[in-house]
């Protein structure tokens, strides 16, 4: 292999941690005591030492990592794809067969991490060697590459041919076994670095990261950077933290509570539409239905946020508040959401509307907030922006959450819904599993006319998106 020209800057090796890890695996596989069983492989009349069978590779991986054979086969296949292990008999395809097919470990010289990116000159020499050695040895795509390279580096072509001949001459002086091995090693290296059309390139990394330092916000370790860090640390030190035990217990109760509602964990009734091709589940759980399912009504009791996020739940809550003559609270909250997430151009209009309706003295739906918050809010209205109503919104939200919401859950209205909600019986397994309903694509929300909302205040795309 010619000592190639200076490597163009590719993705730095530090950013390909998987290569290092693969190399560690491959090195431990070659351990004389703990590694894969090595044997000499007979290929026609030559005997190649230090070969392993595909089956042994898979079994070693399965045992070492305590994984299934399927996973071990996959891991082995990935090692072969990256050229760390190569097949002796059929070097054209980098595939791991879990049988007696012989394989060998690639020499570190050809590892991707040592010799990457592959140089054009080297590829030209390799192809030239193949061409000289045996006419017609080059496959279609190789012939194309060869011609392209010939055009591109025609000025150095004499060097290419000379190097190729020299390497072939040196190779002749080696033993047949060594020659075969080196040829396989080289071939594998080029299969990885110049994959045939159609085969995935394992070395492709996607768009470059952090390379364009010119247009980069470069955080040099300047005084400013450290000052910012110090400020952040000071703030962080002042923060209250919660004990791990408390936080982790919260996960347990959250997962436990939501488990039955999670289709991937507990299934869903009557059936998962993706499996049975039956839309029933989606129809029953549409944003607005006449009869919400029991699970859905249960969820309204999990948290106030959950109740508000469900359009039906919100509508029911609005009805309940109406009965208590505090519906303006929810309407105010919705208006605040509209302001927070609305268009910038709408801000003055929205703020004004909210003031007129909810905050002005004598307003039609005047909300009851403490005087200090009201003062601050009115003050802030002079310079309206998206978050000018945050304080008031939080106050009202907390009020609803701590006061109205618990009462709602205890109310006859809610209890009634819970009792009425259809509890689905387990549908018996279809007798004829092969009868499938024809799949129809659902109408796009972009086509549907905006549905007329019931009592709940209409929030344009505010809150939850209604399909």
């Amino acid at each position, binding site marked *: 292999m010619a000592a190639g020209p200076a490597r163009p800057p590719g993705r730095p090796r530090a*950013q390909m941690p998987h290569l290092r890890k693969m190399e560690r695996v491959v090195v431990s596989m070659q351990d004389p005591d703990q590694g894969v069983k090595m044997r000499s492989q007979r290929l026609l009349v030559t005997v190649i030492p230090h070969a392993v069978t595909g089956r042994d590779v898979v079994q070693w991986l399965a045992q070492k990592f305590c994984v299934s054979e399927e996973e071990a086969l996959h891991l082995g296949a990935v090692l072969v794809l990256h050229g760390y292990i190569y097949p002796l008999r059929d070097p054209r395809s980098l595939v791991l067969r879990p049988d007696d097919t012989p394989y060998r470990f690639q020499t570190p010289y050809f590892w991707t991490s040592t010799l990457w990116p592959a140089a054009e000159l080297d590829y030209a020499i390799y192809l030239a060697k193949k061409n000289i050695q045996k006419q017609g040895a080059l496959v279609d795509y190789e012939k194309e590459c060869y011609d392209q390279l010939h055009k591109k580096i025609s000025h150095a072509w004499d060097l290419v041919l000379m190097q190729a001949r020299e390497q072939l001459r040196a190779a002749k002086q080696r033993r047949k076994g060594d020659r075969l091995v080196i040829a396989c090693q080289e071939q594998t290296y080029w299969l990885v670095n110049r994959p045939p059309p159609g085969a995935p390139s394992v070395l492709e990394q996607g768009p470059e990261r952090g390379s364009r330092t010119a*247009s980069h916000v470069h955080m040099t370790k300047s005084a400013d950077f450290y000052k910012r*860090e110090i400020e952040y640390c000071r703030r962080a030190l002042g923060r209250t933290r919660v004990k*791990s*035990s408390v936080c982790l217990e919260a996960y347990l109760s959250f997962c436990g509570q939501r488990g039955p509602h999670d289709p*991937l964990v507990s299934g869903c009734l009557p059936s998962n539409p993706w499996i049975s091709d039956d839309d029933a589940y989606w129809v029953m759980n549409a944003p607005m239905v006449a009869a919400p399912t029991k699970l859905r009504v249960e969820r309204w009791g999990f948290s106030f946020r959950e109740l508000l996020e469900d359009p039906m739940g919100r509508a029911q809550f609005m009805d309940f508040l109406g009965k208590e003559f505090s519906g303006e609270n929810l309407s105010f909250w919705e208006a605040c959401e509209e302001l927070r997430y609305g268009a910038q151009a709408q801000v003055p209009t929205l703020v004004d509307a909210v003031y007129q309706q909810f905050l002005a003295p004598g307003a039609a739906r005047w909300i009851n907030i403490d005087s200090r918050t009201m003062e601050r809010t009115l003050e802030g209205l002079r310079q309206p922006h998206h978050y000018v109503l945050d304080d008031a919104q939080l106050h009202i939200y907390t009020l609803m959450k701590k006061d109205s919401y618990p009462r709602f859950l205890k109310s006859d209205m809610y209890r009634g819904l819970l009792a009425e909600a259809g509890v689905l019986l387990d549908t018996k397994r279809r007798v004829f599993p092969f009868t499938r309903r024809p799949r129809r694509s659902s109408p796009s929300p*972009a086509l549907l006319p905006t549905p007329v909302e019931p009592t709940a205040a209409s929030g344009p795309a505010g809150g939850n998106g209604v399909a």
Partner: protein
Amino acid sequence: MCDQTFLVNVFGSCDKCFKQRALRPVFKKSQQLSYCSTCAEIMATEGLRENETLASLKSEAESLKGKLEEERAKLHDVELHQVAERVEALGQFVMKTRRTLKGHGNKVLCMDWCKDKRRIVSSSQEHAVTMPCTWVMACAYAPSGCAIACGGLDNKCSVYPLTFDKNENMAAKKKSVAMHTNYLSACSFTNSDMQILTASGDGTCALWDVESGQLLQSFHGHGADVLCLDLAPSETGNTFVSGGCDKKAMVWDMRSGQCVQAFETHESDINSVRYYPSGDAFASGSDDATCRLYDLRADREVAIYSKESIIFGASSVDFSLSGRLLFAGYNDYTINVWDVLKGSRVSILFGHENRVSTLRVSPDGTAFCSGSWDHTLRVRDGGRWAF
């Protein structure tokens, strides 16, 4: 004879104070000047102060960071898998591919579900909506389902209203909303169609008004490319988390633009972040082949999901509805399903023929979709019993 006789003194006007003094040469930013001895001494001490300040700032920052770690460690009284010992194990999972979507002519890079739970938008190296650049790395569905946003190497995020009128040229109606100085890596609508949050290779995140394209807030603090973001499902809806090439995951206050919390335990680029459904924690997937769970109230990492046999980076993560399962797509073409509480792997899924680049659970949790460089998207589900 002594050496001092070799010192030559020039007499003249000092370049700084202009007084007539004995001068000596000084170098300031590779330019030679002549200063009198007083001015030369002042310059030397100034330089010393500057270096001292930088060094002292650095050591102050380090010591504060150390103290912060101590404070965080004080309240760490138990590990997640210990607490989860009394939780019932999940058992065997069988996941099957229910739909394979082939339609992209090239690598699928990103996808998002529509809130109607059935539609998906996906982006790839070539895009159906004609785009000037080849890599479209980010895409998002608007909450109303009437528009999509996408962007990538063009440094922009553009919003396309969805239309099914065949005569309409979608590209004509597109609106360029965000402008960054480097590639767009992620985008997401907030609670409405009118605001978009973006993350970029230029190291910043930004909040934009869709209609006017105005920048509402920008978020600076990452030391390298920002690769992913996720909005918090919290009650007050004010924060989001971002992950970047500086190995940091940062939580931001959308209103003030300040970083509220930062976590730096990953050993490589963070490719994906996703909030736990309760909003009290988030998971991250990284090139270091691990996924980690960070708790916001405890202010620390609380779990690592890794296995010796998993060597390749995790490109995309998402939780199931209850937060019990964590799905992660990896660059070795597989998807690993983790038990979030117990920390063990529940299942490994094969099927893709190239790296899994994107993975999202559907809004109602009935299935999850993975997109891959093998040009396909797969919708999968299953459960603890085979259907």
